[in-house]
């Protein structure tokens, strides 16, 4: 279970918190005062109040020990930079996602050690542009991947000993057997990038490879279960 710490109260942090699957990760909101914490606690999230400028306070909420991911959602860039630098100094492996207000701060945040920079304005601009130029595609994605229907996109990692080990991608035939569409594969033999499944290349699946599939949530769940069930005979006979 991932532990995620969210700093800064804004529309964005609330949206991110409500989107995150609470079964898969535990979320803690870090407020700067009791009023903020109370507002978030009302929505049913765990909250804490600390001063983010103090390293001991950061350690006390679990940075360096059990927090895997950190969201810096302060409205001011220098707060985010400071928090990023402090957290990176405490824990080398933590994933830090930060929002950026001024595009020029993006480089500074990356230099401070953030893993992913989010520019809300840029995303919004792109989204508007997509709506203008590809309304149909955007509509489908909005209704599926960005989830208002139960059509989802998901990534499934193949564990060691899975029934799919040593299977070729063309043998999967997910669309016939599972009502899923295979979008792409991350073949670890070829690096970390995603190869789209458009019949250009055959990939042999090994443990650690990732399948990106699209389909109804129910079927994804079922398929995931099958893949993750080590030594499953049912699938082979399928």
């Amino acid at each position, binding site marked *: 279970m991932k532990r995620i710490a969210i700093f800064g109260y804004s*529309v964005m942090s609330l949206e991110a918190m409500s989107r995150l699957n609470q079964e898969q990760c535990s979320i803690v909101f870090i407020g700067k005062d009791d009023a903020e914490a109370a507002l978030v606690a009302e929505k049913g999230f765990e909250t804490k109040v600390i001063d983010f400028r103090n390293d001991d306070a950061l350690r006390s909420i679990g940075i360096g020990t059990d927090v895997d991911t950190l969201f810096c959602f302060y409205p001011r860039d220098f707060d985010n930079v400071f928090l990023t630098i402090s957290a990176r100094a405490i824990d080398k492996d933590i994933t830090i996602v930060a929002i950026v207000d001024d595009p020029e701060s993006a480089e500074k945040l990356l230099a401070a050690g953030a893993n992913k920079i989010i520019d809300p304005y*840029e995303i*919004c*601009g792109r989204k508007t542009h997509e*709506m*203008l130029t590809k309304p149909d595609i955007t509509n489908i994605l909005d209704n599926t991947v960005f989830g208002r229907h139960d059509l989802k996109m998901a990534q499934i990692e193949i564990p060691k000993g899975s029934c799919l080990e040593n299977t070729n991608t063309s043998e999967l035939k997910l669309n016939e057997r599972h009502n899923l569409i295979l979008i792409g594969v991350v073949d670890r033999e070829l690096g970390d990038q995603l190869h789209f499944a*458009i019949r250009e290349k055959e990939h042999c699946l090994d443990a650690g490879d990732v399948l990106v599939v699209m389909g109804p949530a129910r079927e994804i769940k079922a398929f995931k279960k099958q893949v993750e069930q080590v030594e499953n005979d049912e699938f082979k006979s399928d």
Partner: protein
Amino acid sequence: MLTRLIVYFAYFLKTSRRYQSAKLFFYNLLENPNSRLKSYFDIFMICLVMLSVFLLIYEVDNKLSKSEVLFERCVISLFIVEYLLRGWVYSDNHKIILEHYEKAKYLNVPFPLAKVAGIILGKKIQYVFSPLALIDLLAILPSYRPLRILRVFLIFRLFKLLRYFNSIKLFANVIASRRFELVTLGLFLGFLVFVATTGIYLFENPANGGQVKNLFDAFYWAIVTVATVGYGDITPQTPGGRIVAMALILIGLGVLSFLISIIVAAFNEEMDELRESSTYAELHRFDSFIIICGFGRVGQHIAAQLKKDRLHFVIIDNKEANVLKAKRMGYLVIHEDASKNGVIQNAGINNGATAVICTTGDDVINVYITLTSRHLNPDIRIISRANSQDNVKKLYQAGASNVIQPFEIAGMVVAEYIGQPVAFEAILGILREESHIIMETLCVHPGSFIEGMNLVGIGFEQRKLMLLGIISANPVHQKHKNSYPIKNQHFYFNPELHFVLRDGDLLVVMGREYAIDYFRDQIEKSRLKNGRKG
């Protein structure tokens, strides 16, 4: 009796559709600055004037042939017709008559025929004495034989060109806006030239050993010197004359630079307006464009994307800083408040705009612009930005086609990134067209080879394409499973192989750009071929 006849005639003109449309046509042809007809007419007239002037120059040394005389006469008669038509379009007589008649009837007093005639005549005289009409008249008059002495005025034909060049008109307007400064400076210059003329005449008289024979020479010398031209044909010889010359040169330099600075400043001030009018002119040239209201951070990203796509767009913003930024980037900008009806209308919401995007940071303004745009054009696509969740509904109510919430989207993106980074990067990559893999919709055109085919026949695998699903509003397909309602259509995810395509269906495919383009070309070609057979 006469009054009744006149009033009856005025009513007749008012109701006559043919009369109205004829007048409108000539208004568009001659005066309406926004009509395309006028710009063609202007070009035609410019050519005609140039030709006739060349003919006049040719006439100086040669005798004209019969056809050339005929041409000259045609040009003149066209000028006369134009002059009269402009006079006709200048004011609406029947409107003046009816206005006064109705007023008289209401007040129960006799119709003041003489007064009305006076007003009408006054209007027409006003036209005759307007500067451009005077030039027109002077361009025509010298052609009349008994008035051949007026040949000098033929040069007015060149001035007639003023009428047809918009930029010259703008220049005149700029100069006119600085009338006060220019008149003051002109008076001073006149005084200076006068003093210098008298001075040089007194000092440089041939009796004193100078070259200035008369007052005209003195005046000529003063003008040439004050303008810093200094031909040197007349030069001061006496110490007194030289002192006058030195003083005149120094003061002349000051006056000249002052004059230039006034004109430059006037142009600087008027430049915004000039640029705005050129913005509108440029917009009119586009067949389709997008209106972006608000050039904040989101607006800038949208503009950059649209530029990459080579789509035309215009930005409306009322913040000076944003306008300057947009100008620096070379975008078309209108520095106005987009919430005013006139602004969006002038920008062309009913005249080529395909979409309006409201991206100001203030939801109140976004709602207002959305409402205004929807009111002006019920069919246009409006995409609006909502900064707060509460206002999404209001924007849809105001008539937005789509509502975008920057912070919500960003929050969603973060959540997806944490949950499923690979899947998420994949979809973003496709949308941003970073890799060569794109997602596109292909329309099943009626008459194309794929219409009526099932999915096995198309062979997506051989085409190296991935079919994600089919969007269709056709009720025939409704028995298929995996359908997801999207607005008033259905999205059929992962359709079965026996799914038969109907016209109007949209295939959602993913693949390399050229594979998709090739498939699309095939569909289009087959449709044209079958269309021809049919």
